[in-house]
């Protein structure tokens, strides 16, 4: 008696598991392409924000190198995209992370020209305090655009700090830790790009579509 009800219930449960998983799998297959497209669009939009699209003519998202370096963030491999005009190196678009935000990691995307000048910087992900640290977002404040056109002379360049520490970048009222973290992370990424520019363009492509 009890065995038969166990078998019956087990069979019913597995039937439901199969049906529900089947539906999820179906929808997943149906939307996978659109989701990939959306992610691609998002990536291209981010590229356009940091680097003007007239300056290069290669498919940026399909030309990259993967790098692990302390200057770009402490844990993971970071992706660096290579912008070329008719095959000649133009700029590097670097993903980097700083763990020194007020509440966790700040993900950044910076573009650096061959001569070391910064083309643009954007914060792509953060959890900073709303109303204070979140002014690093372009939506909240245009602070992040002050990086455009700046250069880094050396590791100890005194301009690369917030004004409170004697540098050239504004801090926010009530939030100094966030801009400090962003400034030092952009500085490190730029230094890395400058020192490795040619080597990075010679490295094999890790994003090539097959």
């Amino acid at each position, binding site marked *: 008696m009890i065995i038969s*009800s166990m078998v*019956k*219930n087990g069979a*019913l*449960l597995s039937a*439901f*598991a199969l049906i*529900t*998983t089947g*539906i*999820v799998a179906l*929808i*997943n297959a149906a*939307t996978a392409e*659109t*989701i990939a497209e*959306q*992610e691609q*669009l*998002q990536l291209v939009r981010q590229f356009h924000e940091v680097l003007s699209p007239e300056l290069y003519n290669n498919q940026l998202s399909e030309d990259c190198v993967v790098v692990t370096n302390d200057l770009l963030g402490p844990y993971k491999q970071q992706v660096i995209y290579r912008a070329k005009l008719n095959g000649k190196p133009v700029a590097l678009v670097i993903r980097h992370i700083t763990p020194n935000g007020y509440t966790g990691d700040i993900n950044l995307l910076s573009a650096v020209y061959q001569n070391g000048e910064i083309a643009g910087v954007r914060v792509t992900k953060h959890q900073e*305090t*709303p*109303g*204070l640290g979140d002014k690093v977002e372009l939506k909240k404040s245009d602070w992040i655009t002050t990086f455009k056109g700046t250069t880094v002379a050396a590791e100890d360049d005194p301009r690369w700090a917030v004004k409170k520490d004697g540098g050239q970048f504004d801090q926010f*009222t*009530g939030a100094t830790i966030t801009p400090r973290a962003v400034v030092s992370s952009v500085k490190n990424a730029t230094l890395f790009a400058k020192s490795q520019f040619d080597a990075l363009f010679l490295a094999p492509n890790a994003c090539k579509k097959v």
Partner: protein
Amino acid sequence: MSELKTLLKDGMWKNNPALVQLLGLCPLLGVTSTITNALGLGIATLLVLVGSNVSVSLIRNWVPKDIRIPVFVMIIAAFVTVIQLLMNAYTFGLYQSLGIFLPLIVTNCAIIGRAEAYASKNPVHLSAFDGLMMGLGFMLVLMVLGAMREIIGQGTLFDGADLLLGPWAQSLRIEIFSFDNQFLLAILPPGAFLGLGLLIAAKNVIDTQIKSKQSLPAEAEKGPRARVTSLT
């Protein structure tokens, strides 16, 4: 007909999932910092609620009592995943701003609560209507709270509506007043608790006033229900 009316009254007011049953507080408090986020999560919850109520009602005569809970959970989880995938594909920006709260709909007790308390005992059309009303009631509270927090916190309404409704919605954004520093208390989670508390208080005041006007004949004393916010 009167059954539909009771369901409407229950979902919107008398047994509102957010104001009376206090179910689904996690998303309620988490995403109501702007009215756009509130609307997005409200619609997602509404769809899941109607979908799960209809399917639970359809299978209610085939599933033995002993295994109904795992079956309900599977159905709800499937609906949430489907909605999540669809939102990821078609409202990408909103999907990113709702973040973790979208998969968390699965843990919204209002959904399994309605499946168990109503849909597993009633025919399909009534269950669908119940899901719709409960979902609308939940969404309305989300939106009122979102509007309150957005106005007090950043002085705007419908900020970022284009993430949900497409580029045309950018013109919906209303700047009511602007200040240099946002009012943080309203934006951070404590503001949501305070706002919800005020809403519940307001509902209780209105209920008391209605009751005092009606001067009902004395009702038999009932035992208090567990975990509700109305005073009697």
